[in-house]
């Protein structure tokens, strides 16, 4: 039986790359191939269905490496005699993390070094976005293609108590951002924008952050800025939430705003569009191509412009309705079934080609 295995440095069930890896295994198995996941660090919940890296069979026909950070695991993939496929999810540039988290900086630097070295050994690379693809093309990867990451656009029902709580407290414009509290996500710029919104248009505007903490130093700075801006009562960190709670946030907010400096894809933007939440975003890296025609794309993130955009959404019901419709339509392009089919066809073609 043909075997197509996957290698990933770390696998965890509540992580975008982890979920994608698990989903891709099912796609490969549905094609009739033998497929297992091998990893160095495995979440306790996934011990029984994944394997330690040492168990990777030497006679595998193809090995897919999930590339999103530097890891010694990558060397095993690079030396493996099988057809080598990289699935690239992007690596945050060291300039955006170096000052905040030394360990992460070392890992991303290693990742970028490995990415450059493997241009010669990688037979084919699948990238989440054209932005990611362009990075590999520049490094000289011979064969690359773009297929978005596999994820479930949640059909989960909103958590009722979260929804009630959010709706009970709401007064002004409710601005939502979902993502790790990390410098590349530019939470500080969102605070400046919402502070400007409050100053000029809507004194009750509230900013909601959903997502786990990244570098502790960055969270500390963001907290200092919140205090300095007099936004203590106007910003809420909700931390990591369940799928149901997340849906409640998408349904209760007025607008999703993303001012990230670097995104290799950006799943939360698609989730927001899927739930009919208007999206305003700074057009950087892969954000623009992910949103497509489904939201308002700003060429800069001057707080005054962002605040004006947020205010426009709050006051223009016609625009809101068109953004909702366009967003939903755009989100359909990332439907799990559609992406699964693309992966199936692509992997079949790769294995069948001589």
């Amino acid at each position, binding site marked *: 039986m043909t075997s197509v295995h996957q290698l990933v440095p770390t696998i965890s069930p509540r992580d975008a790359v982890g979920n994608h890896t698990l989903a891709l295994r099912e796609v490969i198995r549905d094609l009739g191939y033998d497929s297992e996941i091998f990893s160095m660090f495995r979440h306790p919940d996934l011990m029984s269905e994944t394997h330690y890296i040492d168990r990777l069979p030497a006679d595998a026909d193809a090995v897919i490496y999930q590339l999103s950070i530097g890891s010694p695991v990558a060397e095993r993939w690079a030396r493996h005699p099988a057809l080598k496929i990289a699935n690239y999810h992007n690596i945050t540039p060291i300039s955006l993390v*170096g000052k*905040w988290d030394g360990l992460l900086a070392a890992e991303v630097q290693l990742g970028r070094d490995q990415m450059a070295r493997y241009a010669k050994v990688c037979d084919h690379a699948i990238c989440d976005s054209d932005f990611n693809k362009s990075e590999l093309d520049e490094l000289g990867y011979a064969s690359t293609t773009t297929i978005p990451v596999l994820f479930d656009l949640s059909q989960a029902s909103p958590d009722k108590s979260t929804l009630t709580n959010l709706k009970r407290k709401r007064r002004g414009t409710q601005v939502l951002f979902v993502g790790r509290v990390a410098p590349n996500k530019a939470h500080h710029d969102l605070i400046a924008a919402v502070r400007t919104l409050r100053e000029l248009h809507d004194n009750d505007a509230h900013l909601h952050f959903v997502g786990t903490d990244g570098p502790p130093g960055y969270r500390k700075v963001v907290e200092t800025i919140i205090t300095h801006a007099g936004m203590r009562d106007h910003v809420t960190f909700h931390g990591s939430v369940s799928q149901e709670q997340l849906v409640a946030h998408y349904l209760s907010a007025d607008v999703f705003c993303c001012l990230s400096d670097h995104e290799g894809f950006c799943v939360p933007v698609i989730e927001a569009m899927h739930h009919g939440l208007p999206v305003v975003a700074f057009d950087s890296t892969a954000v623009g191509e992910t949103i497509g025609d489904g939201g308002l794309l700003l060429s800069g993130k001057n707080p005054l412009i962002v605040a*004006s955009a947020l205010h426009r959404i709050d006051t223009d019901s016609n625009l809101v309705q068109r953004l909702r419709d366009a967003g939903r339509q755009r989100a359909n392009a990332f439907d799990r079934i559609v992406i699964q089919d693309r992966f199936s066809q692509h992997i079949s073609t790769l294995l069948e080609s001589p």
Partner: protein
Amino acid sequence: MSDSRSDASYFKEVVTEIEAEAQRRASSGEYPRALLRSLDEEFRRWIPDASLENGVEDTIRGIETAAYVDPAVPVDSKTPVGRCIKWVVRRLTYFYHRHVTQQITALGIHVTRPLRLLDASLKSVNRRLAALEDRLDVGTVARSELIAGIADISSTEQFGDALCEHLESVSGRVLVGDVLDVQLLRSLRNRGVDVYGVASTDTQVQEMVDVRQEDLFDHLGDLKNESLAGFVLCGIPDRGSINEQLRVLRLLLLRSKPGAAIAVIVINPNTWATQLGPVATDLLHGRPMHAETWSYLLAREGALEITITESSDSSCFLIAATLP
């Protein structure tokens, strides 16, 4: 069903309208620029001082913690018999595990020593680099040697009356720095202005005149935001690098209250070039900025009633304005 193409053009039109609206608000002075500048300053202030400084420290601590390997293997088990067997095995093999783990721990400690040395070295390099960042053109020593060629750095004397008129109605502290004109301080004080001076160079301190002898950047670094009712900036615009000039303006604006009366005195760049000669002019590529440039920078910050006054001999300019 929405039409993707018409949506795309509609959304682009909306963004254009939003940008125009923002531009209109910015030019009408509604933009809370002072607040945003202070948020930006806050962010800059709290970014870790040097790249990797904290991270390396944390990483080394992590290695040191991980380097300690516990030789006592857990004996938890689902059954009492299993626990008993594990306990016996642990007792019997303890000498072996302890021997191995001690060597691993020692290795960890040896590994972290050179890392700590590297860390110290990196920190030192980073500190020096940070100090150099504001002097990207030429070093301080070279700059002061070259700048000594200027016979007459712009003086506040020629603008004494205009400054007194501009500042006499302000309520609160007014800073004059960093070239000191004691006569100006005295005149302002006599007109009831709560004025003080800051000068890094030796200045003969007169009675009844409040003069702080310290670096203007250090002084501004210690001041609270919005603590000044006005300022007169001179000296640094004549001899500072572009970085220093922009930085001092940024700090002064940050420390000034809304409505503050502000003034900048700057040498005429042509006078500056003539006095210095071609060599210094070429080497000091951080030249004085034109009065129009100062006016532009102040307008960008939303300053109102900006006026430019030329001295009688055309050697320098006074740029006066009021903050929004």
